[in-house]
């Protein structure tokens, strides 16, 4: 196979960091090449260099044997390299055709947009690669998986031969992932080449022809996946052995800690987001709330934690009616809350670790005596938590905003789990974290469960749900459409439920 793209000795330095260190990478024509690495390993920097957003300090890029100079995304597009970003760059109120034409408009008579010609080409591309996209639909009416295909069409329309897909599966349901993989295979069969950026090991094994692993800016391995399994990949990525399967005892449930009955909640636009939901969580079990993002999980958690008043229904925590409780009263009932968006809700980024670790307890004795903060005690306590929860930071006075995502999450976990709590509400606790941090958070959740806490885990990651949950509730359009025992559920079944497809059977609740 001929090599279509060659990176030789790419080095990029940022102040204090070597983001890319002598990276070599070969992309063969018709190949899916997975680029694997933890957050901060240098994947994005490398791709931004290829895409022309950064200039490398050293190293060269060759395309088809010719040296390539990319100083801007326009150069890379001209060289046949295109990128689908994690966050789509589409105008929701425009049609597929209009979105594809944006920035590369075909004009009729030098003045008018030639929509006809463009949509004809989109139809051709769609048929050629079996993409099933209707050029006349508006973007906002399309599901996420199809929107992603529109992004791919944009690249094909500009005749890209090399497609860079940046974490493309992060936003998809399992069925949509299968669809994407089919599209990717069609693309390579028609002679395109793909760089597939991911940190999901299963996906590498499922689809990649070749993979390259980055760790701390260096290539630590490059091979074909046949001879590797998940465990080997994970330890290559992290640099040590990783426990992928969390060890856990069977659930030992006794008291009912959280009981939700007939709860309805409206969202910011006054739409019904949670629709007559009932469930309960016992101490010593993990109930996972699975579902595609945006099916009411956020509003449900906000109602449970006092951040949003429910429309109807009841919430009981430890046999107390907490329906109308403020966030502070819910916390004081013994609830720990790991919020969905750690940076905007869970932390005050300009504050030190000391202040962030005291965010839920600053007002109580011993941190506050007659209104005066006891800063020595706060510092001591912070230093103890940094030690116990293995938070990697220069010192306790460091700004939380300067820590890595994994360490920021550890700060939240340390703060929430250090209190006496018998209810844990964890919302997307591992989103965007690397393998090592995920392993850590999972271990802590299991520890809490084994210590007798009731854990409500809201997650869109099926692997996580299947690994951790004793029971799995699937949420779809504001309703819990099924609750399954963790041991019996499988991915396909959950995927169907998440897409709203229920088997003909009564719903056990």
């Amino acid at each position: 196979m001929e090599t279509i793209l060659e990176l030789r000795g790419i080095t990029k330095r940022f102040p204090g960091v070597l983001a890319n260190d002598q990276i070599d990478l070969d992309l063969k024509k018709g190949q899916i090449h997975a680029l694997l690495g933890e957050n901060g390993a240098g994947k994005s920097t490398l791709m931004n260099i290829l895409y022309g957003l950064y200039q490398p300090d050293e190293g060269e890029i060759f395309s088809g044997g010719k040296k390539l100079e990319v100083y801007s995304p326009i150069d890379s597009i001209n060289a046949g390299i295109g990128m689908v970003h994690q966050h789509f760059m589409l105008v929701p109120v425009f049609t597929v055709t209009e979105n594809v034409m944006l920035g590369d408009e075909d004009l009729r008579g030098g003045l008018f947009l030639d929509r006809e010609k463009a949509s004809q080409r989109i139809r051709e591309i769609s048929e050629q690669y079996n993409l099933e996209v209707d050029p006349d639909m508006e973007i906002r009416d399309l599901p996420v998986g199809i929107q992603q295909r529109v992004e791919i069409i944009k690249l094909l329309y500009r005749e890209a031969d090399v497609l860079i897909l940046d974490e493309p599966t992060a936003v998809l349901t399992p069925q949509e992932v299968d669809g994407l993989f089919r599209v990717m295979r069609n693309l390579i069969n028609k002679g395109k080449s793909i760089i597939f950026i991911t940190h999901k090991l299963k996906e590498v094994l499922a689809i990649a022809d070749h993979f390259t692993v980055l760790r701390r800016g260096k290539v630590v391995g490059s091979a074909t996946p046949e001879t590797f399994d998940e465990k080997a990949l994970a330890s290559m990525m992290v640099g040590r052995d990783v426990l992928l399967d969390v060890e856990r005892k069977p659930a030992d449930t006794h008291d009912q800690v959280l009981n939700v009955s007939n709860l309805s909640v409206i969202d910011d636009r006054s739409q019904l987001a949670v629709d007559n939901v009932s469930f309960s969580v016992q101490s010593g079990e993990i109930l996972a709330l699975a579902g595609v993002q945006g099916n009411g999980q956020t509003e449900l958690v906000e109602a449970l934690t006092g951040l949003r008043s429910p429309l109807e229904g009841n919430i009981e925590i430890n046999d107390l009616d907490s329906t109308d409780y403020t966030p502070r009263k819910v916390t004081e009932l013994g609830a720990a809350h790991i919020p969905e968006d750690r940076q905007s809700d869970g932390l005050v980024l300009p504050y030190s670790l000391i202040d962030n670790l005291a965010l839920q307890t600053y007002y109580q004795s011993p941190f506050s005596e007659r209104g005066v903060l006891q800063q020595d005690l706060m510092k001591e306590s912070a230093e103890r938590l940094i030690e116990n929860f293995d938070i990697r930071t220069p010192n306790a006075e460091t700004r939380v905003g300067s820590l890595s995502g994994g360490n920021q999450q550890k700060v939240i976990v340390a703060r929430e789990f250090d209190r006496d709590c018998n209810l844990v509400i964890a919302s997307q606790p591992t989103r965007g974290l690397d393998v090592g941090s995920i392993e850590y958070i999972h271990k802590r959740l299991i520890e809490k469960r084994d210590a007798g806490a009731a854990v409500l885990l809201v997650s869109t990651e099926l692997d996580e749900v299947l690994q951790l949950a004793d029971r799995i509730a699937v949420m779809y359009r504001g309703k819990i459409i099924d609750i399954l025992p963790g041991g019996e559920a499988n991915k396909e079944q959950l995927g169907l439920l998440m897409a709203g497809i229920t088997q003909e059977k009564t719903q056990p609740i």
Partner: protein
Amino acid sequence: MTENNSQVEKPKKNSVAIFFSEITKGSWLIPVLAIFTGLVIGGLIVMFTTEGMYTSFGEGEVWEGLKIGFGAFTDSFEALFKGSVGDPAKISAALKSGDDLAIRRAFNPFLESLVAATPYIFAGLAVAIAFKCSMFNIGAEGQLYIGAIAATFVGYSVEGLPGYIHVPLALLAGAVGGALWGMVPGWLKAKTGAHEVINTIMMNYVAYRLSEYLLRGPMMREGYSPVSPFIQDSAKLFRFFKDPIRFHLGFFIALGVAWLVWWFLFRTKWGFELRTVGANPKAARYAGMNVPLTMVMAMALAGAMAGLAGANEVMGVNYFLAAAFSSGYGFDAIALALLGKSHPGGVVLAAILFGFLSNGAIKMQVMGIPVDIITIIQALVIIFVAAPAIVRTIYRLKEPEQGDEPLVLAASPGGD
């Protein structure tokens, strides 16, 4: 300075020491350079607006013209210095003569600058506290008027009290008046989301007209308009020297209040809440803080500071209230708070700078240099402070390292 103590048991730093170390650490280089640059450019403006220079140019005497221009440049700074700090020649002459009045006159410019700085300190705190809670208090001027009205009323209407009760009472009245005025926009923001910028500006107009109505009606001094009666002697702030020196207790009260505000913001749980709501209201709500109440509290506190500025002017300088008595302290305060980076210590330093500039301006005016130059200098200083990139470019300073790279573990530059 404390290295010597390192062998001895590590001394527990008291809050005063921490207060001063917080002022001195951090990136104060930029404001200092901004002030310097503003002064130099202001001087150049004086130079290029000197008529004599162009007359000489016209006569072909370029060198002579430049000399005249540069002379104006140095003269204006000499005037600024003599007007705000004092004339060294006069001081030594007065000391030699031993004449009390001459000595007081010689030292007056310096002390008068501190008198001018005092309302700036209070008003600057009023804006800084609101900034800390992420609110823009444009209403310090109105709050200042209400504070002045309340203090004046208590000052003249309550009779027969000893000074040590009357003074605190009148100050308290000023603080409460300002607090109420600040609370209204705070409450509107917390309850309805109405933007505090618009509401504080509108409250300013209400305050101006209210003061005019009161001074022409219920609070009018008999036979005069629009001024209030004189306050009782017992409500006057103590003056340390005889005339013409007006230096009074208010300056030290302002320093004490600035320290209290710092202590409140950084050492109490309410201050922690105020700063957290300012830094991240969502996280504050998540952590169980009462965000609306905290906003109202912050604005009330800010208003109280502005109210004290008004009370201070009435009780320490004027002894009565006149319509339009404030020369825009409440608006200069916004610039001040920016210059002081919303830190109470920084506000004190910035206020003293403004006090010296505005007092020195009077002397410059006497010399025929337009007083507007001082306003221009103040404006330039603020521009340079607000746009640190300009200062960094002029002086080739390095960018602060604040990359988005997750691996960079940059320590906080202090403050919060």
